[in-house]
């Protein structure tokens, strides 16, 4: 076991500025930077297990649950693998709002709803997925109701019910690190067990990534276990990735900024519920702009209060969706995962205190808008550009909401809807294809790649590399208030980490091995975010360029897709809004 970072922490204030962060890194570096590796695990004695199934579901959140259940119900053999626990990892445990479009209660039609979202999203949403959400959310809510999801705070038991009823096997605490492709077809996945010294290989006819999105292990948002694992694995076997330039703009409280639970008021304690149509244009990045222009401290408050014209310029909200000042008795901002709900801590009915507490930015740093970043879909069933590979929920770049939070509660509901659809699609494919045989040589090299950090005699601690990355990426003048010079400067740092540090990440045990993989995924995700942000020379929704503050409809009614070129380099290409990829 490596010793956790235990250097005496200088005061929090010292770390709030970029320079402070670097000071901290220097202090931390002594114990967690480059050092001899003292492995607790002997890589040469690590065992292996081999599993075979029709449909492999990776991830045990809302999307994974429905993917597994609906793939099973469509007749396929299903295996679920999760880095954490079913219903207790990723963002699912913290999302309490579930959007439903109930035609008997809504005053507008699904067509009108889709158009309204499209106006708020300034065209960035894919209306096929927006409509799909509205059409299916009510049915998924009914499924969840049957399983007891709306009866309790925690969702593991409720999720376990349909899985156990169907006897779908679940492997928890197994981190998948590699997707396996052979003969241009998905063949399975491989990873390792956190609790045992064991390499796990899963052979499958189709694979559904329900791995969520991710961040840079930021402070104040419960996303530290998500590091874009699915997207990066998929990118490495040829999938296209989209939506990296958008920014989730959640802030946290200035006091104890890392305390997610405390800063979200009573939200983590709540029992999930449903809500109807309520379309917004919740920026989040606007607070970063105010802080950038006026400095600290930044007052707390509901969404929109910062954009009252106190300072000029900055990210803009379409007039139709500007928020009025909240009145007493307002229900409070929407729940996490349902859209940007304003400052954390603003609980239902107004939680005491935190609503007006001073705010700090970057709580969800490294995460785009829900459903906007991830694998580029080639159809409405979540298929990716790799045959047999599907994605759903936050791992799928469906742009269901667009590059901005529009419909409240849509994130959780969208994961359920997309998971169910991808599950059925992956099962259909699995029924009509044969299992691809993976050559032993390919498995051997994957095994060696997984174990490499345990074998290094010396190298860089993943915790240290992660902190360096946070220092580079999280400051608001890099990630949120973007301009060419800073994006290029940050990219130079990130390329250095990619080329020099990632090949030398060390791990002493299975926990640190997980951190090493996560760090590696975060660095590549950072590179994607920087390159996409550099390429989009306009401002739109949650992407704000100080040097290109206007929306450029002539050139930028397009999403950015990222893929690996033949030489291994990162390539970027435009895909026009409302169009499917050309390769489809």
């Amino acid at each position, binding site marked *: 076991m490596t010793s956790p970072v235990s250097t005496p922490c200088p005061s929090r204030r010292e770390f709030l500025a970029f320079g402070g*962060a670097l000071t901290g890194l220097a202090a931390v570096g002594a114990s967690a930077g480059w050092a001899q590796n003292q492995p607790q695990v002997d890589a040469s004695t690590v065992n292996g297990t081999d599993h075979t199934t029709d449909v492999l579901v990776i991830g045990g959140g809302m999307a994974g649950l429905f993917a597994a259940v609906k793939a099973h119900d469509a007749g396929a053999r299903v295996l679920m693998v999760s880095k954490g626990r079913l219903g*207790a990892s990723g963002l699912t445990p913290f999302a309490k709002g579930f959007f439903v479009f109930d035609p008997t209660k809504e005053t507008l039609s699904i067509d009108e709803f889709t158009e309204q979202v499209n106006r708020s999203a300034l065209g960035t949403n894919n209306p096929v997925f927006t409509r799909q959400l509205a059409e299916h959310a009510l049915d998924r809510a009914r499924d969840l109701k049957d399983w007891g999801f709306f009866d309790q705070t925690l969702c593991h038991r409720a999720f376990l019910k349909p899985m156990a009823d169907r006897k779908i096997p679940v492997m928890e605490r197994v981190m998948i690190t590699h997707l396996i492709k052979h003969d241009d077809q998905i063949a399975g996945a491989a990873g390792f067990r956190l609790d045992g010294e064991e390499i796990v290989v899963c052979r499958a006819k189709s694979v559904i990534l329900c791995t969520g999105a991710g961040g840079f292990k930021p402070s104040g948002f419960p996303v530290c*276990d998500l590091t874009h694992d699915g997207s990066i694995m998929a990118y490495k076997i040829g999938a296209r990735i989209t939506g990296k330039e958008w920014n989730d703009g959640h802030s946290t409280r200035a006091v*104890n900024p*890392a*305390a997610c639970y405390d800063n979200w008021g009573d939200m983590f304690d709540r029992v999930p519920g449903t809500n109807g149509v309520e379309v917004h244009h919740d920026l989040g990045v606007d607070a970063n702009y105010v802080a950038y222009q006026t400095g600290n401290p930044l007052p707390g408050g509901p969404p929109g209060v910062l954009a009252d014209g106190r300072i000029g310029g900055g990210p803009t909200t379409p007039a139709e969706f500007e928020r009025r000042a909240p009145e007493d008795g307002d229900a409070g901002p929407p729940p996490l995962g349902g859209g940007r709900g304003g400052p954390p801590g603003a609980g239902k009915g107004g939680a005491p205190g935190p609503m007006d507490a001073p705010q700090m930015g*970057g709580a969800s740093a490294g995460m785009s808008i829900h459903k906007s970043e991830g694998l580029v879909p080639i159809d409405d069933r979540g298929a990716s550009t790799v045959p047999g590979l599907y994605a759903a929920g936050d791992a799928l770049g469906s742009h269901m909401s667009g590059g901005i939070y529009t419909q409240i509660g849509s994130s959780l509901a969208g994961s359920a809807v997309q998971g169910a659809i991808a599950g059925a699609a992956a099962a259909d494919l699995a029924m009509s294809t044969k299992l691809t045989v993976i050559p032993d040589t390919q498995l051997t090299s994957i095994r060696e790649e997984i174990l490499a950090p345990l074998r290094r005699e010396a190298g860089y601690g993943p915790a240290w590399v992660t902190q360096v990355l946070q220092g580079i990426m999280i400051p608001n003048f890099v990630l949120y208030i973007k301009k060419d010079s800073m994006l290029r400067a940050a990219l130079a740092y990130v390329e250095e980490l990619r080329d020099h540090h990632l090949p030398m990440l060390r791990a002493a045990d299975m926990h640190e091995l997980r951190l090493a993989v996560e760090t590696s995924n975060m660095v590549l995700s950072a590179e994607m975010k920087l390159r996409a942000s550099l390429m989009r020379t306009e401002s739109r929704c949650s992407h704000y360029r100080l040097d290109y503050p206007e929306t450029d409809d002539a050139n930028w009614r397009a999403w950015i897709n990222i893929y690996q070129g033949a030489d291994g380099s990162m390539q970027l290409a435009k895909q026009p809004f409302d169009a499917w990829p050309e390769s489809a």
Partner: protein
Amino acid sequence: MTIKSINGCIGCGECVKSCPCDVIRLDPSTGKAVIAYPADCQICHLCRMYCPVDAIEISPDKTIPVIVAWG
């Protein structure tokens, strides 16, 4: 500290499984939960909420420097 203390642990392992960030492990010698990797705690309280005997106490402080977007 993040997770501050574990008192009255019965060794059921619920917290180990429900921690998204793999902070807690069972001590092989005592069979009880220990805070193995405090630096990785995201202060989400899932371990506390899943604990059947309410053994876990959590503080809002992080053990490592916190990097935010502005200061």
